[in-house]
């Protein structure tokens, strides 16, 4: 009793292109692991057999921004690093999403100091914030599922003619 049994005869299915596209997108979110400090360890743990991020189709951590859809910012972002994070984000193809993992990325966390950006939403559009220092892998998976819900509601045309104001800004 598998898919083969059902597909003995030619089957068909009525749906919308948007639904199919959104379903494929949300079932294969490839993360860009922006592991900057300690939170990265929990992000790695989320990929191990116990938590197994592959269950959500997100096991392919891409270390090239060109091949990823989701940036997991896991760690303390300093002002110096902020430039790099933003540049990598700009290099990711649209559509793209961002998880702010942990207290540091969400709000500066315990580093209330001159060198740490007090929340990456000052320079990145964040979709989901994850609480914890560090968040447990379950919490990251929960964030991923929230993103999946969000992606599931999108339509292909939402991403047409998006303004790339920042990109133009960074290139000039």
């Amino acid at each position, binding site marked *: 009793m598998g898919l083969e049994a059902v597909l003995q005869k030619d089957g068909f299915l009525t749906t919308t292109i948007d639904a199919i596209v959104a379903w494929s997108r949300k079932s294969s979110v490839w993360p860009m692991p922006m592991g900057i400090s300690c939170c990265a360890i929990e992000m790695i743990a989320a990929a191990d057999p116990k938590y197994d991020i592959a269950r959500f189709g997100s096991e392919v951590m891409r270390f090239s921004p060109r091949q990823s859809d989701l940036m997991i910012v896991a760690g303390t972002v300093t002002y*110096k690093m*902020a430039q790099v994070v933003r*540049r990598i984000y700009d290099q990711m193809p649209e559509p793209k999403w961002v998880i702010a993992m942990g207290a540091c990325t969400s709000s500066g966390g315990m580093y209330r100091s*001159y060198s740490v950006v007090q929340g990456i939403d000052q320079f990145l559009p964040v979709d989901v914030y994850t609480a914890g220092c560090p968040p447990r892998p379950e919490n990251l998976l929960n964030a991923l599922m929230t993103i999946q819900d969000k992606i599931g509601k999108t339509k292909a045309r939402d991403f047409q003619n998006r303004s790339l104001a*920042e990109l133009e*800004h960074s290139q000039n």
Partner: protein
Amino acid sequence: MNTKELIVEKIKEKFGESVEEVSDFRDDLCITIKKDQIVNLGKYLKEDPDLQFIMCKDVTAIDWATRKKRFTTVYHIYSFKLNYALRLKSNIDDNPPTIETVSFVWQSANWYERETWDMYGIKFINHPDLRRMYMPEGFEYHPLRKDFPVLGIPGSLPLPFKAE
């Protein structure tokens, strides 16, 4: 004669007047020297066959905020021959704080002095490459000074542009 006495005696014999203070607090020997003698003292400690302080473990500074001589530079050096770690200090005044570099005596001091420049704004004269270590280039302040606010100076560090 034990190690400490040997070190102190040798330094006193050679530098006499320039030694400002010798303290031995909790078994940590610390020599305070006039700032113009720091390189000579370093060279001497490194090259003297009985001492051989060939390793510089750290260079840092203290900001005393209200003291007349506002800054103290601190050097931690180590001798494998004596198996002994010695601390050197030198008081320097503000406007602007300067001291001769010891990076020609100990190579490792090069980056330590860059860090001290970055954090305290102490200028090391004749340093081969006195750039900032941690803070971005173009930053105008020195964060570990007592008059620097812990949350930084708003707008002094640029963030990437975000369109809303």
